[in-house]
C-alpha cells in the first residue's frame, strides 16, 4: 500500500504525537499522585504563549522553550494550591484554570488578553526564532527510517528521553513507589511517613511543566508564532490518552501515537481521497471512543485519584 509506505505519513505522525504525549506523560504523574488534572489545555496554552514571548524577546528558541516549561509549572501552582491546600474540587478547579487561560470564546482568556496587550492586533513577531530540527548522523542515510526518525523538531528527541525517564521514575524508583502510594491510599502512605502533600505537589508541577513544554513545542516548534486557541483541544485529548493508557507513561504515549497517526492519516486522506474533509476529521475522535470502549474495562484509576486529601489530625 502506497499510503502506508509514505514516510511523510509516519514523520508527521510523530510530529503530531509529541505535544499530546508530553502533556499526557506529565499528567500521569499528577494523577498517580491522586490529583486529577483536566487543566492541560489551559496550561499548554500558557506554555505556548510564554515560549513565543521569551523566544522573540531573547532571540533564543531554547530560552523560549525553557520559559514555556516554567510558565506551565507556574500556572499549575493554581491547581495545586486550590486542590492541595484549599481542598477544592479538582475537576472544577481544572475547568476554572482552562476558562481562565483559554476562555470560552475566541477571545482566548488570559492568554488572549496578554497577546493583545503585548502585541496589539498584529500577532506575535514574525522574527520569532524556531526550535531547530535535529538530524541524527548515521540514521539520516537510512532510507525510510531516516526520513521518519531523523530531522524531527529537537524536542521530539528530548521527549523520547523523558518518556524513558518517566517510566523508570514512576515504576523503578523509591520516589515513584511513594508517589503511587499517595495516589492509591494517602492515609496509609502518611502513616508510613511519606510526605503526602509534597509528593502531590511534585506530581502537579511535573504535569504543569510538561504541559508547558508541549505548548512551546506547538508555538515555537511546529511554527514560530502564537495564536489564541492554538492548542485546539490537544490538552483534552491528552487527558483521554492518560486514561486509555492506564495512567502509565508508556501507555499514554502509545495512545497519543495512535491519535497522532489517525490525525496524520486524516491529513493525508483529506488531500488524497474524495471523502469530505470534515467527515475525515471526525475519525480520530470516534476511534478514540471505540478504543476506549474496547479497553476501558482493563484499566483502573489510582484509587484516590480526584479525592480531596484531608490529613488526619
Amino acid at each position, binding site marked *: 500500500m502506497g499510503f502506508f509506505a509514505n514516510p511523510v505519513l509516519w514523520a508527521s505522525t510523530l510530529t503530531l504525537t509529541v505535544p499530546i504525549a508530553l502533556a499526557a506523560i506529565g499528567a500521569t504523574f499528577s494523577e498517580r499522585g491522586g490529583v486529577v488534572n483536566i487543566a492541560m489545555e489551559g496550561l499548554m496554552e500558557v506554555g505556548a504563549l510564554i515560549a513565543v514571548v521569551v523566544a522573540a524577546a531573547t532571540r533564543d528558541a531554547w530560552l523560549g522553550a525553557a520559559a514555556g516549561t516554567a510558565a506551565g509549572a507556574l500556572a499549575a501552582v493554581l491547581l495545586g494550591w486550590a486542590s492541595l491546600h484549599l481542598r*477544592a474540587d479538582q475537576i472544577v478547579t481544572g475547568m476554572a484554570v482552562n476558562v481562565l487561560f483559554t476562555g*470560552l470564546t475566541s477571545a482566548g482568556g488570559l492568554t488572549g488578553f496578554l497577546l493583545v496587550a503585548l502585541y496589539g492586533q498584529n500577532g506575535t513577531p514574525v522574527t520569532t526564532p524556531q526550535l531547530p530540527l535535529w538530524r541524527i548522523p548515521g540514521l539520516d542515510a537510512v532510507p525510510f527510517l531516516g526520513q521518519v526518525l531523523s530531522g524531527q523538531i529537537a524536542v521530539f528527541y528530548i521527549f523520547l528521553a523523558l518518556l524513558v525517564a518517566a517510566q523508570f521514575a514512576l515504576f523503578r524508583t523509591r520516589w515513584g513507589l511513594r508517589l503511587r502510594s499517595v495516589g492509591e491510599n494517602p492515609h*496509609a502512605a502518611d502513616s508510613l511517613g511519606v510526605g503526602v502533600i509534597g509528593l502531590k505537589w511534585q506530581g502537579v508541577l511535573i504535569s504543569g511543566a510538561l504541559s508547558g513544554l508541549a505548548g512551546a513545542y506547538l508555538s515555537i516548534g511546529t511554527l514560530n508564532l502564537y495564536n489564541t486557541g492554538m492548542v485546539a483541544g490537544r490538552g483534552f485529548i491528552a487527558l483521554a490518552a492518560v486514561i486509555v493508557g*492506564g495512567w502509565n507513561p508508556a501507555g499514554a504515549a502509545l495512545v497519543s501515537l495512535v491519535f497522532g497517526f489517525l490525525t496524520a492519516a486524516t491529513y493525508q486522506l483529506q488531500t488524497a481521497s474524495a471523502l469530505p474533509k470534515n467527515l475525515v476529521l*471526525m475519525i480520530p*475522535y470516534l476511534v478514540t471512543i471505540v478504543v*476506549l470502549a474496547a479497553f*476501558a474495562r482493563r484499566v483502573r484509576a489510582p*484509587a484516590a485519584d480526584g479525592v*480531596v486529601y484531608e490529613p488526619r489530625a
Partner: protein
Amino acid sequence: MSVDGASAPAQAAVVRPAWHEAGWVHTVGAILLALVVGTGVLAASGTNPLTAYAALLSGAFGGTYALATTLVDSLPLMLVGVGVALTFQAGLVNIGGEAQYVIGCIAAAAVGIALPHLAPAAHIPLALLAAMGAGAVLGLVPGVLKAYLNVNEVVSTLMLSYATVYFGHYLLEQGPMSVSIYENQSAPIAQTAVLPLLLPGTQLSWGLVLAPVLAVAVSFFLYRTTTGFGLRMMGHNPRAARYAGVAVAPLTVLAMTVSGALGGLGGGVQILGNYHALFDGFTDNYGFTAFVVALMARNNPYGVLLASLLFGTLANGGSAMQATTGVSPAILDVIEGLIIFFIAADRIVAWMLGRRRGGGATAQPAAAEVAS
C-alpha cells in the same frame, strides 16, 4: 495497569458539605472577589474599570432591546445547563453539552426545513422533539458506555462533542444541508416552524418560558422523587448507593439520556426561536459554556438560571464594553474563570467572610469517582 491486584480499601467517606452544597453567600462572594481581581487586571492594562463596567451594564440592561438580547444569550445556557446539572448531581462529569446542543440544532433545522406544509401547532413540537431525540441519543451513548463498559464519561462526551462539531461543518460546507456551494449555511426553516416572539422587535422567543419550567421539573425530579434521590445518592457516594440498592447503571444511562434531551432542546429552541437556519459557527460554544454554568450553579437547576443570566450579561454587555472602551472581551473570560476558581476554592471566600463555620471544608467532590 501495574498496580493492579492490591486494590486499596475504600476511603472512609468523610461526610462534609460538598463544594456544590455551600451556601449562595459563597457564590456571591466568589463573584465579587473575581470582579475585584478583574478590576485590577483592567486597571493594570490602562483601562478605567468604572467606564468599562458602566459600558457593560448599559450594554446588557440599557433598554428593552439590550435586556432581551441578554436573555437571548442566556437561554441556550439555561436549557443545556439544567441538563448538565442533572448529570453533575449523579456524579457524572458530562462535557457532552456541546455535542447535544449541536445535534439538537441540526435536527431541529432538518425538520424545520424538510416539512414545510405542517401547521405550526404540529411543526414546532415535532422539530423540538426531533432535537430532543437527537440530543438524547448523544447522551445515551456515553451513558451506556459508562454504565456497562466503564468508559470514562469525561473523555467520551468530549470526543463526541468534537466529532459532532465537525459533523455540523460537514453538513454546511458543501454538504447535504448547505444551500449553495458559495455559502456555508442551510436554507431557512419554514415559517411554520418559527417560534413566535415574546417581545416583538427583539430576538426573544417564547422559548424563554421553557427554561423556568424545566428548572422546576428537574428540581422536582431530583428532590421530590425516589429516582431523583437515588441519583443524588449515587453522586454523593456510588458505593453506598449500590449497597442501598440503587440501580447505578440504569440511573447513569437515564441521567445522561435526559441531560442529552435537554441539551438537544437547547439547540432546537435556538434554531426555531433565534437563528432560523444553520450557518457555520452556529455552535458558539454554548454547550461547553453550559458545563461551566452548571459548575457555577453548584448543580442546582434554579442556580443554573441565575448563572446563565450572569453569563448572558457578560456576553451581551461584553460586546458593548469592547465597542465603547476597546477592552478585549478576553477580560470577561478571565473573570468567568476566576469566579469558577473561587467557587471551587471557597475556603478563600469562607476566610474572607470571617471564617464563618460551615462553608470552609469542601470534600467529596461531585467527581470523586471521575476516573474509576
